């Protein structure tokens, strides 16, 4: 392998593939002749149902629209394209579905590509072994992993680091498109840059920023061009109305991060305490001085989600001030009666949550104004049980109890609850939980992420 040192330009069309790419800004970036187009497609933010139920963040229509644009540039200008965390959760099936969409568009347009796929589903036997060997630790406050949790998870992926991408680029330089499964968001950027003699502190910091598109600009945008060299990188949003400033770029590492100065990832920690942010003009910024500290052992983050039950909900409102003045004791009494009907609510096999909108539904115990009495509240009853049938039965009884249970001082004897929906109870299907969110040591950064090559 020959390590070249040169300046690389990387175009990022959006923070998440499928959210929409502004075509004019995208083509402005393409005109700059980038060395690669890289776009991340993943996030855990929408919650565990994506991974647990194997769903994608964006509907097919959104992927097809965004892919049509980037594939046109990839084909006409021969710009390498990398998509990572396909579908959001980045399970193997999502990688294959992304390839199928690329194939469909390419067939219609007459494009030809060499494609590499990198998979991130992890064999449970490997996880069991490493747990037994004490090579799995919690990631943030996620608690200790158990063998039961490994078995309960519907899907388990690991966030690949930079090396699997670098390996494909190094061993198969003729590949036009890489579609990766679950990956640490900046990993494809790092994978490309590490082959070009760029300092790891520089490329990890750059990747960390541009994997979100032009969110680091003011106002925040989509398409951004990064120019990266051995010891610094420059950022320029491709919408002329957006500006990157030293403050806007520095502020980006606050976003969705535990802390803005030390960022942990596969293979080490990015240290931004000495970073310098310099305005090149009024909308371009140069960043330097960031340092990457490799960790002693290389770990990847496992993500797994399990189905923990089935849910049925009811929603409605309460306007009666006499009832609102005693809402807590009223709901406590509802709960007491419900527990009498359904012992599974006592054992914890089933659960019932009341969300009181207008009081503390948003913040729960964090709400400082929870003791103020509102003139109206919305109430959502959320029932979770092992089966949908069971959840439906409990929810129906709970809704009836809320509607008709008498309370002290009651004047309105016909009903306590204003119900907008008919039918009043609505099954909403399985509910998931991130039950695996842990760091696992690997033998090598590439070992768990198999590569496949195909031609389109």
């Amino acid at each position, binding site marked *: 392998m020959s390590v070249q040192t040169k300046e690389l330009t990387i175009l990022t069309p959006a923070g998440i593939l499928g959210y929409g790419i502004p075509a004019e800004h995208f083509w402005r970036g393409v005109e700059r002749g980038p060395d690669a187009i890289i776009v991340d497609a993943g996030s*855990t933010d929408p919650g565990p149902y994506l991974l647990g139920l194997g769903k994608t963040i964006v509907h097919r229509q959104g992927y097809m629209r965004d892919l049509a644009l980037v594939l046109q540039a990839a084909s006409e200008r021969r710009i390498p394209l990398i998509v990572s965390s396909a579908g959001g959760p980045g399970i193997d099936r999502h990688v294959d579905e992304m390839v199928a969409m690329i194939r469909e568009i390419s067939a219609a347009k007459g494009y030809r590509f060499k494609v590499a796929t990198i998979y991130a589903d992890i064999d449970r036997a490997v996880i069991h072994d490493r747990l037994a060997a004490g090579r799995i630790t919690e*990631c943030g406050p996620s608690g200790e992993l158990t063998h039961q949790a490994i078995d309960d998870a519907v899907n388990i992926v690991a966030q690949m680091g930079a090396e699997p991408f670098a390996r494909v680029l190094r061993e198969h330089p003729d590949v036009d498109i890489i579609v990766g499964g679950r990956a640490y968001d900046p990993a494809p950027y790092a994978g490309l840059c590490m082959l070009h003699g760029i300092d790891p502190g520089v490329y990890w910091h750059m990747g960390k920023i541009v994997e979100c598109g032009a969110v680091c600009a003011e106002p925040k945008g989509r398409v951004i061009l990064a120019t990266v060299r051995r010891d610094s990188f420059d950022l320029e949003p491709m919408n002329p109305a957006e500006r990157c400033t030293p403050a806007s770029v520095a502020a980006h590492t606050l*976003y969705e991060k535990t802390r803005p100065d030390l960022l942990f990832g596969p293979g080490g920690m990015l240290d931004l305490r000495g970073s310098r942010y310099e305005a090149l003009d009024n909308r371009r910024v140069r960043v330097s001085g960031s340092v990457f500290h490799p960790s002693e052992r290389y770990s990847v983050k496992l993500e797994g989600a399990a189905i923990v039950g089935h849910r049925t909900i009811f929603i409605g409102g309460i306007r009666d001030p006499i009832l609102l003045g005693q809402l807590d004791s009223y709901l406590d009494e509802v709960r007491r009666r419900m527990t009498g009907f359904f012992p599974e609510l006592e054992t914890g096999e089933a659960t019932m949550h009341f969300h009181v909108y207008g009081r503390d539904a*948003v913040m729960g*115990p*964090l709400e400082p104004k929870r003791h103020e009495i509102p003139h109206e509240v919305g109430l959502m009853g959320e029932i979770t049980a092992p089966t949908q049938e069971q959840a439906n039965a409990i929810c129906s009884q709970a809704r009836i109890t809320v509607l008709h249970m008498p309370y002290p001082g009651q004047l309105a004897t016909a009903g306590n609850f204003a119900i907008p929906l008919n039918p009043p109870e609505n099954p909403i299907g399985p509910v998931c*939980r*991130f039950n695996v969110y842990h760091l696992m040591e690997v033998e090598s950064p590439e070992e768990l992420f198999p590569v496949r090559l195909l031609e389109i």
Partner: protein
Amino acid sequence: MRNARLRDLAKVIRSKNSGPFEITFDVIFDDDATYQRVKESGALEQAKMALLYNVPAEDIIACMFFDPAMAFKLTLRRAWAQGSVGERDTFGAQQHAPLLDIVVD
């Protein structure tokens, strides 16, 4: 402007998940004098944050200022599972409100 509310001093006050097990808060200023004033006032110190959000000190994972961005960062352990049973705020995007009315001398 003495006894100003944080909402009148900051450019950004927001909350969001930082992964499924944490909620993180950012307060960003757009001029250094205001930033320094808030930083030195002690209005955002850790004990006050614990009180404001009614959480034990050990649930505060980060509480710090970040000079390059003229920003304050607070990160709390998420005491409930993200996007699962009993969830209130899947994205953690509406937990910032109590910060708005903090009074700064």
